[in-house]
């Protein structure tokens, strides 16, 4: 219940945060909403020396539409995303994903940046940002760089973030033309994390057929991933039930599915297939 002692800094700017992080690359940790980090600290599974609180940097929490892009600041809370009228119109996948996270208290405090940077294998946001083919803007001692969401998640709780780097912004190409989106999730009955979570973004032709599909998957493997087999099977296809079902069957291709007390790998894959199908059905119906 009680974390080990640490020092705490609340920098006013991101640049200051970067330099604080650089001062103690091994012992310092970024604190945003704290909803992954603080429970781990209370169980003493994490014992950072220094917490650099970026949630107080007001300019880091925003949802903006700029030209053809949607820009989301790293410390934007799940609730801000869930309740954004702008996003409900232009990118409903984000609010749909947000509202499925944890509970209202967690969503009020937890941030999209924290969740993405933590890369929990059962976290929801990684699936969504992958399905939206987001660019992640990172800032570090050597300046800024951009990483594709699909490249960002490296392994279990491991991302492409280098020591000293901070996730600054999530950039999403504003969906255009006819499209449909859905996030479908099986929450763990105790933790609320995703046993499986499927984020679907479909670009549709005028006749309702699929121009291109992007499917993000969480909960199944050690990290969130893009279900390329499903995407390939849907590209250019008519979205009839049979096509969707056979496409969804590819969702776990090449993935060694997680197994735990609640769900074996085999069952998880079966769930992933069902939920992939349901996500595609729901997305196409939008």
């Amino acid at each position, binding site marked *: *219940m*009680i*974390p*080990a*002692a*640490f*020092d*705490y800094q*609340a920098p006013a700017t991101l640049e200051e945060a970067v330099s604080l992080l650089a001062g103690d690359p091994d012992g310092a940790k970024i*604190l945003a909403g*704290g*909803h992954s980090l*603080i*429970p781990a*600290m*209370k*169980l003493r599974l994490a014992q950072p020396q220094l*917490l650099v*609180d970026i*949630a*107080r940097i007001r300019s880091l929490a925003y949802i903006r539409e700029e030209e053809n892009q949607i820009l989301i600041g790293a410390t934007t809370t799940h*609730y801000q995303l869930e*309740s954004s009228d702008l996003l409900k119109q232009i990118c409903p996948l984000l609010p749909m994903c947000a509202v499925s996270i*944890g*509970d*209202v*208290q*967690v969503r*009020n*405090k937890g941030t999209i940046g924290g969740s993405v940077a933590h890369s929990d294998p059962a976290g929801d946001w990684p699936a969504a940002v992958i399905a939206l083919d987001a660019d992640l803007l990172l800032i570090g001692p050597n300046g800024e760089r951009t990483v594709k969401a699909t490249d960002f998640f490296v392994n279990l709780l491991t991302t492409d973030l280098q020591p000293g780097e901070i996730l600054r912004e999530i950039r999403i190409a504003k969906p255009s033309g006819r499209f449909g989106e859905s996030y479908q999730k099986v929450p763990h009955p*105790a*933790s*609320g994390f995703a046993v499986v979570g499927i984020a679907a973004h479909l670009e549709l032709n005028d006749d309702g057929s699929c121009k291109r599909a992007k499917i993000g998957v969480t909960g199944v493997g050690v990290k969130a991933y893009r279900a390329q087999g499903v995407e390939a099977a849907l590209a250019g296809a008519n979205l009839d039930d049979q096509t969707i079902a056979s496409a969804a069957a590819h969702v776990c291709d090449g993935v060694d599915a997680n197994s735990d007390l609640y769900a074996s790998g085999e069952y998880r894959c079966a769930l992933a297939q069902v939920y992939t199908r349901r996500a595609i059905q729901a997305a196409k119906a939008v």
Partner: protein
Amino acid sequence: MKKAINLNVNGVSRTDEVEPRVLLVHYLRDVLGLTGTHVGCETSLCGACTVMLDGEAVKSCTMFAVQANGATVTTIEGLATDGELHPVQEGFWECHGLQCGYCTPGMIITAAQLLERNANPSREEICHGLEGNLCRCTGYQHIIEAVEYAAKKTAS
């Protein structure tokens, strides 16, 4: 190394020096003596510690007091105004929404948030809104009825 914090709790301005690791819930309970906010788990899953922070329900066990610097906090003790129960408090009393009472403060704060955002929630919306709060006594039915009561009361 202690840090100075300054916050407004239930309408009273507070200034204190706290170790960074002091959880907000411990600050409220042990430093300010506001023991209505409870601790029921370690993993941010039971919701007994829920308070309002700048108008948003948060779990005060998953937050350090230093993070609340500058914030306005309302705990269960501050929910009633001028001695008049908040409609949700009244609903819990009328509908027997509590038994042992331990989850109740967090449940009431969360329900108050729910009604602020959705004045007329369906049963399903109430259940979704209370997802972050565990109750082991009531079986939830009377809690749901209490929230419905409060919604009606607020509307009239």
